[in-house]
């Protein structure tokens, strides 16, 4: 059974608008959450993270929100740019050095 779900396989957004990517997890023991971005034919690159003691972390155009009671996190990209078009993976982590658990990814297309 999937521990991390990204229920939207794809998302299309106009340039300049907000992109919202969602991720749900099942285990309340997860205490660190990350987003990775992947372009075709490249490895994923780390984008932004948040620990369970926070509910928001911002880095430039990227903001991650965490709702622990709903076991839900989201990534907001404002404003969206064509270069943001990529696959975005949500990943969760449980302290104790267990491996990251990844979602299946959401393909974001930002249309000029």
């Amino acid at each position, binding site marked *: 059974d999937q521990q991390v779900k990204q229920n939207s396989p794809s998302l299309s957004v106009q340039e300049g608008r907000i992109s919202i990517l969602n991720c749900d997890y099942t285990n309340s023991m997860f205490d660190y959450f990350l987003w990775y971005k992947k372009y075709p034919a490249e*490895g994923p*690159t780390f984008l932004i*993270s948040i620990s369970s003691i926070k509910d928001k972390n911002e880095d430039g155009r990227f903001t991650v929100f965490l709702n622990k009671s709903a076991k839900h996190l989201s990534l907001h990209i404002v404003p969206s740019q064509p270069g943001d078009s990529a696959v975005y993976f949500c990943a969760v982590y449980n302290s104790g050095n267990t*491996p*990251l658990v990844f979602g299946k990814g959401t393909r974001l297309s930002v249309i000029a």
Partner: protein
Amino acid sequence: DVKVTQSSRYLVKRTGEKVFLECVQDMDHENMFWYRQDPGLGLRLIYFSYDVKMKEKGDIPEGYSVSREKKERFSLILESASTNQTSMYLCASSLNGRPETQYFGPGTRLLVL
């Protein structure tokens, strides 16, 4: 700057061949990982290692083995390649207890004919 390198970007092999995928990291990371990425299935963990000579099975270890003789090098071995092992293979490394330090290599696209 963290660097994770993989020995090949593209590889074509025949069914039944033994295949070696090599990964090297230069940041003295303790942890190393092998994933495969397939459309609609995301990133699936094959094997990982937290120390030299140590290995742990991930979610899909069947048909694979690994070797970690040196801290910087983690090899993935397909003992007898099959067509269902055609995939993008990604290596990653990280520091202990620091998930935000997990960096990926560029990937090896393997085609098994």
